């Protein structure tokens, strides 16, 4: 059951140095209640993809093509006014920085209640009650008292929980979490991830989780889309991806995990040589070819399409597979 589908999304930023192709051709689907991780290194277009969904990219100097459908509606066709009713109610966003993402002028309870009242016809007292429930839901102790706290009186982990409470205030269908734990201590990350996972399970919220941390992916996601240079290069259920990564890029990412390096008893972390190609052009070739140990003329002659190689496991590569046997 597809809830959200992104098809052939293409996002171009007009800059002084010419157009920047942040997202070149991105397609994925999200089922109701599913947790989908969008993985990739900095600048691969994962955040831009996610922010395109509720229309949160700046309107000036940004061209967005393709379609984004939520249930039966094309979100790209909605007016800003209509999008305001979608945001926070059907699609919510949790940002990376909990420190600066709350309004410093009001107690957190008031802010949550405000989001509730913005989208639902509730009385002030009822909204307040709902705010307390929500804080309780995200495992904040003594929620009644915490409601009266200002953001600066809370720790980073608590603030992120408040952000999650706010995002879930109106039972959205989709939650977009943009690196929700990157700014937090490792010890606190686990707690916040658990809250996202259990809450979305119980409420049936579908999640688009953006991260560059494969540990986070393994912990919470159902399915993974690996992005590289504005395109998906591999997409698979989380178990299948970790058991049998197909794309050399994914394999490289996994090799760079400290735990895997330890297991392989290598003295240094494996790395992927080279850097991401500049997002200014889009030649018809595999964008990873320049950094890929398996690349050949074929890879440089035409872009490999996303193809099903294993059950429910797609890869955009001419030489997929666990080990470099094709070379």
């Amino acid at each position, binding site marked *: 059951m597809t809830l959200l589908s992104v098809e052939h999304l293409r996002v171009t930023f007009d800059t002084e140095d010419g157009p920047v192709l942040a997202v070149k051709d991105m397609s994925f689907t999200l089922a109701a209640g599913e947790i989908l991780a969008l993985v990739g290194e900095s600048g691969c277009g994962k955040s831009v993809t996610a922010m395109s969904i*509720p229309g*949160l990219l700046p309107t000036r100097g940004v061209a967005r093509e393709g379609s984004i459908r939520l249930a039966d509606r094309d979100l790209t066709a909605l007016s800003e006014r209509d999008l*305001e*009713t*979608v*945001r*926070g*109610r059907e699609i*919510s*966003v949790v*940002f990376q*920085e909990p420190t*600066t*993402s*709350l*309004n*410093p*002028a*009001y107690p957190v309870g008031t802010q949550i209640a*405000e*989001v509730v009242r*913005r*989208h639902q016809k509730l009385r002030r007292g009822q909204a307040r009650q709902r705010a307390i429930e929500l804080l309780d839901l995200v*495992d*904040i*102790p*003594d929620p009644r008292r915490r409601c009266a*706290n200002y953001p*600066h*009186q809370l*720790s980073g*982990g*608590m603030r992120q*929980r408040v*952000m999650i409470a*706010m*995002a879930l205030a109106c039972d959205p269908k989709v939650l977009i979490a943009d690196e929700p734990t990157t700014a937090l*201590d490792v*010890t*606190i990350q686990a*707690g916040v991830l*658990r*809250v996202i996972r259990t809450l979305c399970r119980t409420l049936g919220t579908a999640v688009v989780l953006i991260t560059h941390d494969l540990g986070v992916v393994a912990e919470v996601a159902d399915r993974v889309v690996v992005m590289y240079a504005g395109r998906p290069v591999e997409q698979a259920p989380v178990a299948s991806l970790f058991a049998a990564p197909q794309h050399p890029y994914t394999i490289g990412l996994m090799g760079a995990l400290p735990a895997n390096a330890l297991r392989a008893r290598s003295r240094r972390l494996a790395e992927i040589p080279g850097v991401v190609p500049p997002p200014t052009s889009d030649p018809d070739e595999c964008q990873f070819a320049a950094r890929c140990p398996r690349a050949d003329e074929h890879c440089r002659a035409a872009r490999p399409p996303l193809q099903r190689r294993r059950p429910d496991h797609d890869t955009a590569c001419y030489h997929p597979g666990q080990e470099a046997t094709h070379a």
Partner: protein
Amino acid sequence: MTSDVVALPVLTIGRGTRLRRRFLRRPLAVLGLVLVVLFLLLAVFGPMLTPDPLVQNLSSVFADPSAHHLLGTDDLGRDELARLASGARVSLVAGVLSTALAMVVGTPIGLASGYFRGWLDAVIMRFNDAVLAFPFLIFAVGFAAIFGASLRTVVIALAIGLLPAVVRVARGEAMMLREQDFIDGAVADGARPAGIVFRYLLPNSVNALIVQATVAVPTAIVGEAALSFLGLGLQPPAASWGLMLTSAQQFLVQAPQLAIYPGALIALTTLGFNLLGDGLRDALDPREGR
């Protein structure tokens, strides 16, 4: 049980307490506060405790201070202290009303200008520059000529004169705040632009706006005095510090105190508000040490 959410005791002292401490540590700020409070007392209670400022007594003009007239009398035998108190009330009304008017009108305009940018900002700022570029006194003369010289005209003219500064401050705050993550967050939660201006930008610009208001009040008080001095404000026989200066001119040698009293009050009140404003600005500045 998640380990990271153990309830920590909230150790922060109230914002008010901290602000008070930081303010009271500054002698000049306290002096400003004292001067402003004295001015307010004079303006509010002075007229109740002194004789009628309009009653003339031509048999005792330029009287020396006495038990009956604490600061003596003026050229028409009117009680000088009563006239100063009455003038204080005029200054207070002119200063506060015109500032309030400028803040109420200018703040939303400035916030919207800074938040939306684009053509709206361009139009508002060019208009702002135009008001700023036009000499205030010439504008006020024209304004008084059209609408007649009165306290109401003065207040409106002053409010228009104060407007550009308010708009600029509010716009600056909005431009700074719009880049903050919590504004993106509000948009992502479905907040309307108007909601963002009033619920997010306004409360977070309060500090800067309070400081701006304390600077605007003395400007308006001086402005009122100047306009009344020129005969464009309050009309005789009413008492206003500016008017009192005008009539004192003729007797500068004979009775210099008639010019000194209102002049000193204008200076002290202005100084008081300015020191208070500086003190508040410093105390509200989060970058300052606690």
